C-alpha cells in the first residue's frame, strides 16, 4: 500500500478520533474537566447500534439515529447525576476527576455484566468496497469517515458560532460567573455541551462499527485515550485543534502500523501524550491560561 493510501486511510481512522476528541475538548473548555467517561460513551454508542441493528432488527437509519439519541441522553444524564452537583459547588478538581473515573468504570463493568466480555460483531453497514484511483487504494470506510467528520465539524462550527446556545456555551467557557450575571443559563449550556459531545461520540461509534468488526465493553478505554491524546495534541479546549489532533493521531497510527508494527501503536500513543505534555502542554493550537495570582 502506497504512502498516500496509508495517509488517507489514516485520515479516515483519525476522523473517528477527531469526533470523539471534540467531545473531550468541548467539555474541558466549559467545565475544565477531563471527562474520563467520554471514551466509554463510544462504547455505549457502539452497543446501542448493535442492539438496535442486530437484536431489535431495526433498519439502518433508525439504528444510527437511535444510537445518537441514546448517547446524547446518556451524556446529559451522566452530567446531571454525577457531575452537576460538584460543578455547581466549585468542588476541588480531584473530586470531579474521581467521579469521572467512577462513571467510566461503572459504564465499562455494567456493559460487561449485560453483554459479557467477549466481543460482539456488528454487521457491515456502509461497505462499498475499496475505491481505486490510480495507484491509490482507499477503503470506502475511510471516505465515509472523512466526509462525515468534515460535515460534523462544519455543523458544529455553525452551532457554536451562530446559534444562541452556541453563544451561551462560549460565554460559559470564557467566564462562567460573568455569563451567569449576564442572564445566561450556564447549567443548560453545560448540559447541552455534554449532549453534543456525546452525540458526536455516537457518530464516531457508528463509524467505528463500520470500520472494525468487533466491539467489547472495554473498547472505550483505548479509543478514548487515543482521542484524548488527540484533543491534548490539538490543544484541549480548542475545537479546530481537536479535529487537527484527531487526524494527526490517525495518520500516525496508520503509518506506524504500516511501517513499523501494529504492536507498537499503543506505545506511540502514550509517547505522543508524554512528549506533548512535557514540551508543549497547550498543544498545537491551544492558548496558555495560567492561574491569576
Amino acid at each position, binding site marked *: 500500500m502506497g504512502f498516500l493510501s496509508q495517509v488517507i486511510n489514516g485520515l479516515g481512522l483519525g476522523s473517528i478520533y477527531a469526533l470523539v476528541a471534540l467531545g473531550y475538548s468541548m467539555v474541558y473548555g466549559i467545565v475544565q*474537566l*477531563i471527562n474520563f467517561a467520554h471514551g466509554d460513551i463510544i462504547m455505549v454508542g457502539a452497543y446501542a447500534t448493535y442492539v438496535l441493528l442486530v437484536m431489535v432488527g431495526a433498519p439502518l437509519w433508525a439504528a444510527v439515529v437511535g444510537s445518537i439519541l441514546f448517547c446524547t441522553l446518556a451524556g446529559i444524564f451522566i452530567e446531571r447525576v*454525577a457531575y452537576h*452537583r*460538584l460543578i455547581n*459547588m466549585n*468542588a*476541588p*478538581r*480531584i*473530586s*470531579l*476527576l*474521581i*467521579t469521572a*473515573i*467512577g*462513571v*467510566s*468504570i*461503572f459504564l*465499562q*463493568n*455494567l456493559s460487561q*455484566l449485560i453483554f459479557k466480555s467477549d466481543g460482539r460483531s456488528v454487521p457491515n453497514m456502509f461497505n462499498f468496497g475499496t475505491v481505486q484511483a490510480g495507484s491509490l487504494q482507499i477503503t470506502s470506510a475511510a471516505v465515509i469517515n472523512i466526509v462525515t467528520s468534515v460535515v460534523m465539524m462544519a455543523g458544529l462550527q455553525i452551532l457554536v458560532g451562530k446559534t444562541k446556545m452556541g453563544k451561551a456555551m462560549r460565554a460559559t467557557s470564557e467566564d462562567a460567573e460573568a455569563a451567569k450575571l449576564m442572564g445566561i443559563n450556564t447549567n443548560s449550556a453545560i448540559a447541552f455541551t455534554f449532549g453534543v459531545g456525546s452525540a458526536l461520540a455516537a457518530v464516531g461509534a457508528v463509524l467505528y462499527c463500520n470500520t472494525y468488526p468487533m466491539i467489547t465493553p472495554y473498547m472505550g478505554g483505548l479509543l478514548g485515550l487515543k482521542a*484524548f491524546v488527540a484533543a*491534548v495534541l490539538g490543544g484541549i479546549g480548542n475545537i479546530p485543534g481537536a479535529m487537527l489532533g484527531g487526524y494527526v493521531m490517525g495518520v500516525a497510527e496508520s503509518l506506524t502500523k504500516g511501517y513499523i508494527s501494529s504492536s507498537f501503536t*499503543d*506505545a506511540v500513543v*502514550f509517547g505522543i*501524550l*508524554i512528549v506533548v*505534555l*512535557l514540551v508543549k*502542554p497547550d498543544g498545537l493550537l491551544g492558548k496558555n491560561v495560567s*492561574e491569576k*495570582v
Partner: protein
Amino acid sequence: MKKKRTVFYLLILALVLLLYLVFARLIDAKVINRYYSGIITMVCINIILAVSLNLATGFLGQLVLGHAGFMSVGAYAAALFTIHSGLPKMVSFPLALVLGGLVAAVFGVLIGVPALRLKGDYLAIITLGFGEIIRVVITNMDFTGGARGLRGIKHLTDFTWVYFVAVLTVAAVFAFIRSRHGRAVISIREDEIAAEASGINTTYYKLLAFIISAFFAGVAGALYAHHIGVLIPNKFDFNYSTEILVMVVLGGMGSVTGSIIAAVVLTILPEFLRNFSDYRMVVYSVILICVMLFKPSGLLGQHEFSLAGLWDAVRGKGKRNRADGPAVGGQKGA
C-alpha cells in the same frame, strides 16, 4: 505534656502488641485457618497500599492512578532477588523487602519528575499511563516470566512480618505527616502558590511525598509476592489501582486511620461476598461516585479516628478544639 505524650505512645504500643499476640496465638493454634490468615495477610498488605497512596493522593492532593504499578515493580524486584540471591531466607527476605521498596522508589523518581510538573488532571493520566506501560513491559520481558508469570517464589511472608511491616508503615506515615516535612506537603495541597510564597520548595516536597508513597507500595508488593508465590503482571492493572483508590477515597483523603478502616472493610467484605464478585467493580465505581457526591472528604475526612471524636459524633456534637501539640486536622468540606 511530655508525660501525657509518653503515656499515649505506650498505650498505642501495648495495643499493637496485644493485637499481634492475640492473632498470632490464634493462627498458631489453628483456630484461624489458612484461608482466614490469608485474608488477614491481604488486609495488612492493603493497609500498606492504602496508607501509602493516601500520602500522595490525600495529603499531597495529587490523584495517582498507577499505584499498582509501583507495587508490581517492588514485587518483581523482591521476588527475583530471593529467587536468585542464594542467601539464607532470614537474610534475603528483609533485604528483598527493602529492595522492593527502593526499586519502586526509583520508579517513583522516574515517573514523578516529569509527572509532577503537570496539573492535576494530566498528572492523573500520566500516572495511569505509566502504570499501564509498566504492566505491558513486564508482560513482554522474559526474565520476569512474561505473561505466564513468575513462579516458584518462596512463601516467606507470614503474619508476623506482614503485621509489623504494616505497623511500621502506618507509624512512618503518621510520623511524616506530623513533622515539618509533612506540613510542607499538606500546604502544597491546600494552596501551592501560597506554599511557594511561604518558602516551601514545592517541587522537592511533591517528589518526596511521591517517592515515599512509591516506596511503601513496593514493600507491599514484595510482601505480596512472597505471600502468593506467583506473580502475574495482569494482576497489577488499573482495576487494582482503582481498588486501592476506593479505599483511600472512602476512608478519607487525609486520614491514615480512615485508610486503615477502609482497607480492612474493603478486603474482608469482598471475601464474604464472593458470590457477587462479578458486581464488585460496579459497586466500587458507585461507591466512588456516591462518596464524591455526598461526602467528598470520605468517612473520616481529614480527621484521625479518636475515641473522643467517636463519642462526640455519637452525641451529635461538633469537633473539639485542640490548641496544642503537633496537631494537623480539619474537616475538608467541598
